[in-house]
């Protein structure tokens, strides 16, 4: 045994794995120049993880790698990895070297052996290509050949020492039954976990008939890491780990911009529309026009020339377009122009995680600014509710951090008798705006009612509005409240028309009254005129009378004077001197 050495650790010494999500969990990747143990059951994705690590090194980090395959032949591994688009053939030899080290099936074993031979060969290979990364895939196969536990331990130590001495970033994969069974049954490999600097456990389990893949970093010397199980997915581009929950959350700055909901009156009710980057939840019973509201939002977004993605869980691509076209929402042209992408995912395959990762991938590909998920409640039906809740949470987190406006619907099942707030995803507490649609059954009719339950940061109407769908589109109408009841549909119409005719009647009555008053006024005016004329006549007469009287008096006095003159009277003549 070689003496124990001490290795210097620097904070930034991490080797990127190129696995989305994993680098975030570990704060940068695997420990550089150290060994990582990757444990997992059959089919848990160990080989893919390891290979992706090498591909990333070879392609982006200028760190060529060697893949030592103890189980599968390199040919098979390459064929299996073909689908991920890693172009292994291009990398091979110079940047990526495969060593087939499968024990031959007819191999006879007699006594102990060691790996010195292979390591000597690898030394040459490493020097030749300047390899910095190495993977020993399915080391357990080789170790199983060693009968003696001490010999196994010795070989693992030998390998580990060898890796450290060369400062290679290494992954050793080994089969294990995950966390629980590793205690007793897999004791021989147990000590490997203590020896290595980093241990990652892959888990593949089936919960309620749905496959769930989880990854957990068990230990990571000298670094903080997300210690919880993180769901992962083997997708089109390889391994993808669902984002870390605690590390590196960067929220986008809050934006005050409003985006239209696609329904004018709803915008008014919300005081201008949804906030950009907000998450909107539309809940309702089946058939309450949730999808239609989503469609209206999508159309409005497209009209603003924003890239939009519409994820439909229960309808086909063409069905969505047809159904929405029937209420005047024409999406086909935007699909054609590439502005809108409709993704139709049937509910059968995959679990909530898978969906989330797929939605994320598609949205990223499409560079969507607005996202519609209809209905998001599907997530909870295809996985156990606990996961679904965290998925919904991360969905909202993710859309927020990207500034994507998210509109999702959630089905409220009438049959299950779930009350309003108990949306199975509990997404309602996370959503910024919550619109509830329901039926009002009244007088043999079902009508759609819309109400805003909450809308953070905006003043919003507290009134229930009736939602009307027609060829021309979606509109909201005021409802009538009569005797403490909300009237909708025909009853609203009746009430409306009754009110209308009543209004007309009073209008007519008022007109009539005015006419009669006018007539009376006119009559009075006429009378006033005639009286005035009469008055003038009388005045004239009066003045005439006054004048005649005056002249008479004058006449009379003149007559007196004349008479006095004639009579020769003198008494009254002092002024004539």
């Amino acid at each position: 045994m070689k003496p124990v050495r001490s290795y210097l650790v620097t904070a930034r010494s991490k080797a990127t794995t190129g696995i989305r999500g994993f680098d975030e969990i570990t704060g940068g990747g695997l420990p550089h120049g150290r060994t990582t143990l990757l444990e997992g059951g059959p089919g848990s994705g160990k080989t893919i993880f390891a290979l992706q690590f090498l591909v990333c090194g070879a392609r982006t980090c200028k760190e060529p790698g060697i893949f030592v395959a103890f189980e599968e032949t390199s040919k098979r591994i390459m064929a299996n990895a073909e689908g991920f688009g890693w172009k292994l053939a291009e990398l091979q030899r110079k940047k990526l070297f495969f060593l087939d080290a499968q024990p031959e099936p007819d191999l006879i074993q007699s006594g102990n052996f060691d790996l010195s031979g292979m390591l000597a060969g690898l030394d040459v290979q490493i020097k030749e290509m300047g390899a910095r990364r190495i993977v020993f895939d399915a080391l357990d196969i080789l170790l199983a050949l060693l009968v003696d536990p001490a010999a196994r331990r010795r070989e693992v130590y030998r390998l580990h020492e060898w890796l450290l001495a060369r400062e290679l970033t290494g992954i050793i994969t080994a089969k294990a039954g995950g966390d629980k069974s590793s205690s007793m049954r897999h004791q021989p490999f147990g000590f490997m976990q203590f020896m290595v600097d980093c241990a990652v456990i892959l888990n593949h389990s089936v919960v309620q008939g749905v496959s769930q893949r989880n990854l957990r970093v068990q230990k990571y010397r000298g670094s903080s890491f997300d210690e919880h199980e993180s769901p992962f997915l083997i997708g089109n581009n390889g391994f993808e780990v669902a984002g870390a929950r605690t590390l590196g959350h960067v929220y986008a700055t809050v934006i005050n911009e409003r985006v239209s909901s696609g329904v004018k009156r709803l915008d008014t009710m919300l005081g201008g529309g949804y906030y950009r980057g907000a998450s909107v939840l539309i809940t309702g019973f089946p058939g309450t026009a949730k999808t239609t509201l989503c469609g209206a939002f999508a159309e409005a977004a497209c009209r603003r020339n924003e890239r939009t993605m519409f994820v439909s869980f229960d309808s086909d691509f063409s069905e969505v377009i047809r159904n929405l076209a029937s209420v005047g929402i024409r999406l086909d042209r935007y699909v054609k122009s590439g502005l809108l992408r409709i993704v139709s995912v049937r509910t059968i395959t995959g679990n909530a995680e898978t969906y989330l990762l797929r939605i994320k991938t598609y949205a990223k590909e499409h560079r969507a600014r607005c996202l519609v998920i209809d209905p998001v409640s599907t997530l909870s039906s295809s996985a156990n509710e606990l996961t679904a809740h965290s998925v919904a949470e991360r969905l909202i987190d993710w859309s927020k951090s990207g500034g994507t406006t998210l509109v999702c619907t959630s089905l409220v099942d009438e049959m299950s008798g779930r009350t309003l707030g108990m949306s199975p995803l509990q997404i309602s507490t996370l959503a910024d705006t919550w619109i509830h649609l329901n039926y009002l059954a009244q007088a043999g009719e079902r009508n759609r009612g819309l109400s805003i339950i909450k809308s953070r940061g905006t003043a919003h109407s507290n009134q229930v509005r009736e939602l009307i769908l027609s060829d021309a589109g979606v509109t909201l109408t005021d409802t009538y409240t009569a005797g403490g009841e909300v009237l909708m549909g025909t009853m609203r119409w009746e009430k409306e028309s009754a009110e209308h005719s009543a209004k007309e009647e009073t209008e007519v009555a008022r007109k009539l009254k005015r006419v009669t008053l006018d007539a009376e006024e006119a009559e009075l005016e006429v009378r006033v005129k005639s009286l005035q004329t009469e008055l003038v006549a009388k005045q004239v007469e009066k003045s005439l009378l006054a004048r005649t009287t005056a002249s008479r008096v004058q006449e009379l006095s003149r007559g007196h004077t004349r008479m006095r003159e004639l009579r020769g009277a003198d008494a009254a003549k002092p002024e004539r001197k």
Partner: protein
Amino acid sequence: MFRFRLYVAGDTQNSAQAVANLTVLCRANLPNQHQIEIVDVLREPMRALKDHIHMTPTLVKLSPSPVRTIVGTLSQTQPLLQALGLITFAP
């Protein structure tokens, strides 16, 4: 004539043991009808890779056919002799 090739890793414990065991075995069972070639993979590492030798020590019986590969210190003589076709077992 038995032709053997034994891949060893220097004089590590396992390898030294295999050399000793093989010598004893040949002397006892195949006097004067064997030929042993010893390849030290530490000195010829590329040869080990090329010959697909990953574990040391590894013994390859080149002739008589069939060619057989035996891994280990060659300490368990009975199954070893059986594999080499030196004894046949009647169960």
